[in-house]
């Protein structure tokens, strides 16, 4: 195969921002090449440089052994299918396709022949007199392809051409595009952020990130041997775990050493291990290499997507005191009022204000007749940042009042060294009817316990994914209950045809070939 | 895209010569002494001193501002209900109303103002009608009333159209939401419609106040030869007394006052917005 296009050290800067950081890439004749990456990775910029719509800040573009870096688009032997097609709305299908030929002043009969042949190729010969606005998305797509191909370019550039189509049409067009490429036998350069599209159609995939090429290879290469975590995550779904290469063919993760087929890493090098979901199997809890609990099962048509958690996340258990207390009744004013004792962390005393106290004590007052809420006009309390119990009194303007205890303590945190996470929650008091009336109990429990978790490294908050308790909210009676809050642990995604039971303990099995070891980025 | 960018170069040169340079000339003249040769300019603040130390000029400035503010207020008071009613009418009727209000603006302002001379005269049509009712004749021509009337007549279409646009742009479901939340008609007008149409009022004010404060042919035609506003002063500096430096200084003062008032109105607008934003 002949080298058709060469990008040599292409750098592009927009307003002082580097969008492309020195791209070197060769493209051969008759190849279907896909530039793959998330939006903002520079793939469209690279395509527009090749199309002639942008000039690189540095570097050269060689096309057919000639330097075309500074050649305007209308002098280049390549054509583009644009994002959202860019069809000329004031022309019909025929005139859109004939545009390029008319510009080249080809004879009328030749134009007609070529256009009709092209419309036949894309299956639109019936529609030549239609206005483009009346065409469906898929048809417009075909017009755009015909309009570009009729000029017999050496290369066809496609900029996210299927982005605007719905899923079903997109799949159809993927096959169609591949068919057209094979039929006309020219190079297609295809830009997309959809990894599935890239895997289906390409001869060669170029994975890009932040203006740099990460990996170039065939779809199988890239899927099976991703060069780093970024590529692995981008191409297909995968489980990526951190581990250590203890020796050649030996990798350790989750405190166990496993056989693998990779070597050449330095001793005790920290690595990422990719395990594709379809490479994992669910087996009995004793026969697997890893053991975990099934967290969720989603039916995906051909297979079940199962999530198994092998190690749980950071967790904290707090006590919930459930009472049968009734609200205070003030018959003179016709008002009722309720509030409960509450716990608070020493560190939070500094930021304490009335709103927080009302919130934590769940203090409410209402008219006993109409049940309409009444404002709490006064809150009396004294507190010091020392462990202890402090009374708090809430009053309405008509004199109804309730006194509860604010309990200050400092033992409500759990730190998880492995995950570098900290979780926090406090004991709390609740009434039976409040629990029974809650419509979002998990969320309410988090609020009542003031449960929060955060990353110890950067302080960002971490989601609490699990709330566990052993009572039935519908039939709860006064007493003391444990409530546990947990963050996400080590989870594996497994694609299998067998359905696992949620909550059951299972084993995970894999072979040494299923582990792909990658250097850290 | 270089090829397309080049297309703007001629115009960039053109506006530099025809817009930027003349503006700079006004500033240059305002801060220099008499003498029409570009090479013989001398820096001075004399022109500004002359303006601010002479009560006649300050009175003129005050009268111009007063007339412009009166005009703007009348335009809002008449323009808002008009715009509101139009926005409430049926779709086809709406377009007809908008057309009816736009058409006069296409006709020469001078011609339309000229017509009022005949109408407002002591023996004109209004006084004849008043005479039938046993009133009058009332002298209207060459009074403040005539000048404000002329300005309202010329500028009110802009106010109506601006407010109308902001009212039609408004999402009708907001009013439904307000009434759904328990607001009666008047409350939902006061708390939703009015604050949301404020931007329209503001741009309407810009379009009325600005030409009103600088106008010079309306006071000349309807106010008579003795009726002096800031615009007429500038005109006479340039076309009769020939003191371009002083004329430039007055223009500059006027431009600054206009910019300041625009800035203040916009600021009020923003303040209101952030207050109502809580709603």
């Amino acid at each position, binding site marked *: 195969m002949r080298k058709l296009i060469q990008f040599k050290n292409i750098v592009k800067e927009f307003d002082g921002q580097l969008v492309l950081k020195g791209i070197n890439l060769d493209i051969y004749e008759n190849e279907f090449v896909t530039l793959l990456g998330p939006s903002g990775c520079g793939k469209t910029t690279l395509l527009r440089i090749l199309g002639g*719509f942008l000039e690189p800040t540095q570097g050269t573009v060689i096309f057919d052994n000639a330097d075309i870096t500074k050649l*305007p*688009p*209308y002098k280049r032997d*390549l054509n583009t299918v*644009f*994002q959202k097609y*860019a069809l*000329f*709305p004031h022309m019909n299908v025929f005139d859109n396709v004939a545009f*390029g030929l008319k*510009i080249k002043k080809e004879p009328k009969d030749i134009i007609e022949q070529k256009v009709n042949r092209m419309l036949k190729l894309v299956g639109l010969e019936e529609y030549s007199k239609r206005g483009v606005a009346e065409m469906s998305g898929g048809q417009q797509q075909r017009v755009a392809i015909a*309009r*570009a191909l009729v*000029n017999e370019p050496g290369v066809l550039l496609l900029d996210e051409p299927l982005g605007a189509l719905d899923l079903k049409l997109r799949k159809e067009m993927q096959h169609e595009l591949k068919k057209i490429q094979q039929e006309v036998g020219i190079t297609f350069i295809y830009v997309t952020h959809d990894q599935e599209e890239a895997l289906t159609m390409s001869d060669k995939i170029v994975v890009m990130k932040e203006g740099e090429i990460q990996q170039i290879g065939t779809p199988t290469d890239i899927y099976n041997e991703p060069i780093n975590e970024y590529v692995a995550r981008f191409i297909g779904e995968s489980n990526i775990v951190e581990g250590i290469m203890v020796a050649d063919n030996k990798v350790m993760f989750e405190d166990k050493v496993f056989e693998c087929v990779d070597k050449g890493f330095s001793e005790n090098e920290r690595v990422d291990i990719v395990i594709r979901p379809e490479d994992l199997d669910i087996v009995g809890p004793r026969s697997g290499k890893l053991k975990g609990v099934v967290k969720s099962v989603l039916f995906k048509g051909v297979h079940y997507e199962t999530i198994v958690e092998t190690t749980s996340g950071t967790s904290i258990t707090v006590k919930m005191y459930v009472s049968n207390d009734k609200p205070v009744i003030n018959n003179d004013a016709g008002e009722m009022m309720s509030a409960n004792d509450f716990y608070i962390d020493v560190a939070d005393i500094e930021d304490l204000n009335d709103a927080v106290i009302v919130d934590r004590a769940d203090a409410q007052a209402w008219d006993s007749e109409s049940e309409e809420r009444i404002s709490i006009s006064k809150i009396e309390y004294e507190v010091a940042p020392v462990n202890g119990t402090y009374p708090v009194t809430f009053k309405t303007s008509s004199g109804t009042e309730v006194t509860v205890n604010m309990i200050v303590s400092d033992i409500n945190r759990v730190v998880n060294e492995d995950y570098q996470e900290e979780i926090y929650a406090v004991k709390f008091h609740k009434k039976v009817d409040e629990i029974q009336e809650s419509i979002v109990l998990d969320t309410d429990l988090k609020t009542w316990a003031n449960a929060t978790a955060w990353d110890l490294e950067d302080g960002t908050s971490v989601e609490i994914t699990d709330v566990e308790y052993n009572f039935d909210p519908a039939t709860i009676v006064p007493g003391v209950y444990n409530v546990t809050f947990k963050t996400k642990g080590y989870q594996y995604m497994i694609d299998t045809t067998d359905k696992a039971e949620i909550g059951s303990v299972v084993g995970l099995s894999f072979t040494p070939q299923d582990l792909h070891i990658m250097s850290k980025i | 895209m270089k090829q*397309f*960018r080049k*297309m*703007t170069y001629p*115009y*960039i040169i*053109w*506006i530099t010569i025809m*817009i930027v340079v003349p503006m700079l*000339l*006004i500033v240059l003249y305002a801060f220099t002494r008499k003498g*029409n040769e570009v090479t013989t300019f001398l820096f001075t603040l004399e022109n500004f001193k002359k303006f601010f130390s002479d009560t006649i000029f300050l009175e003129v400035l005050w009268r111009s501002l007063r007339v412009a503010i009166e005009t703007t207020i009348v335009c809002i008071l008449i323009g808002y*209900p*008009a715009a509101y*009613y139009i926005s409430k009418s*049926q779709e086809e009727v709406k377009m007809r*109303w908008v057309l009816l209000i736009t058409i*006069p603006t*296409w*006709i*020469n*302002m*001078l*011609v*339309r103002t*000229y*017509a009022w001379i*005949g*109408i407002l005269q002591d023996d*004109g*049509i209004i006084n*004849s009608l008043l005479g039938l009712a046993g009133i009058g004749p009332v002298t209207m021509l060459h009074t403040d009333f005539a000048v404000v009337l002329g300005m309202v*007549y010329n500028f009110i279409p802009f106010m109506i159209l601006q407010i109308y646009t902001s009212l039609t742009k408004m999402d009708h479901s907001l009013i439904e939401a307000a009434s759904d939340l328990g607001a009666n008609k008047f409350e939902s007008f006061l708390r939703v419609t009015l604050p949301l149409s404020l931007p329209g009022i503001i741009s309407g004010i810009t379009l009325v106040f600005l*030409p009103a404060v*600088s106008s*010079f*042919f309306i006071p000349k035609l309807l106010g008579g030869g003795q009726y002096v506003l800031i*615009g007429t002063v*500038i*005109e006479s500096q*340039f*076309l009769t007394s020939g003191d*371009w430096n002083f004329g*430039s200084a007055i*223009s500059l003062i006027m431009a600054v006052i206009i910019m300041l008032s625009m800035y203040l109105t916009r600021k009020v607008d923003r303040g209101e917005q952030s207050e109502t934003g809580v709603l």
Partner: protein
Amino acid sequence: MKMKLHRKIFMIALIVFFYAPILYIIIFSFNDSRSLTTLSGFSLQWYEKMFKDDTMMESVFYTIAIAVLATVISTVIGTITAIGLSKSRKLIKNLVEQVNELPIMNPEIVTAIGLLMFFSALHMKKGFLTLLAAHIMFCVPYVILSINPKLRSLNPNLADAAMDLGATPWQAMIKVIVPQIMPGIISGALIAFTMSFDDFIISYFVTGNGVSNISITVYTMSKRVNPSINALSTLIIIILTIVLLLANVIPALVDKRKNKILKNKEMYE
């Protein structure tokens, strides 16, 4: 929703306010006497006088000539510039658009004296050319402003697509962009025409040597009672009404034609 009575009265009063002066002019242009207040009979003498009055006729000619030239030139410049700006860097675009708004935002009299001093500084003879240049200056911004929204709603790749298919930038503009923004160009041209046709303040300051437009003539003549002004004004109203009718009717007619052709086609197909 039907209009309530008080609303109806209010709106009718408003329309009377708007149109009474215009009607007044038209009626008194046919008046028999010099009076601007009492009608004494029908006559066409003021029209006769107007047509015989060289100053008036010349000013009509200059007004139309300037308006047509300024419209054509500023529409072409405005279209090219607006398209160029849509592809320009933000910085340049913002800068040009801001300078562009100066003549719109500035009091006309300020623009006028600026131009007056500018032309004098260059020792340019005030007359037709200075008048035309000034009119082009204040017309282009309106053209650009009315084209800009159309350009913004355009697929940004259209010009690229045309060039990709071999069109030069110029061809891409004429064959692809201009047809797309035609409504904006037409309304821009219409605004430019009426702005130029009606302009008084700027024209008043930058013209001289016997060249004057209708507004200036009306202004200078209005110092004495002269019913020919009514005749001239009526003439202007008629000209503008025709222009407006054409501007509103022609596109509608074209649309109708198009629809008809399309429908016929569909029937045959």
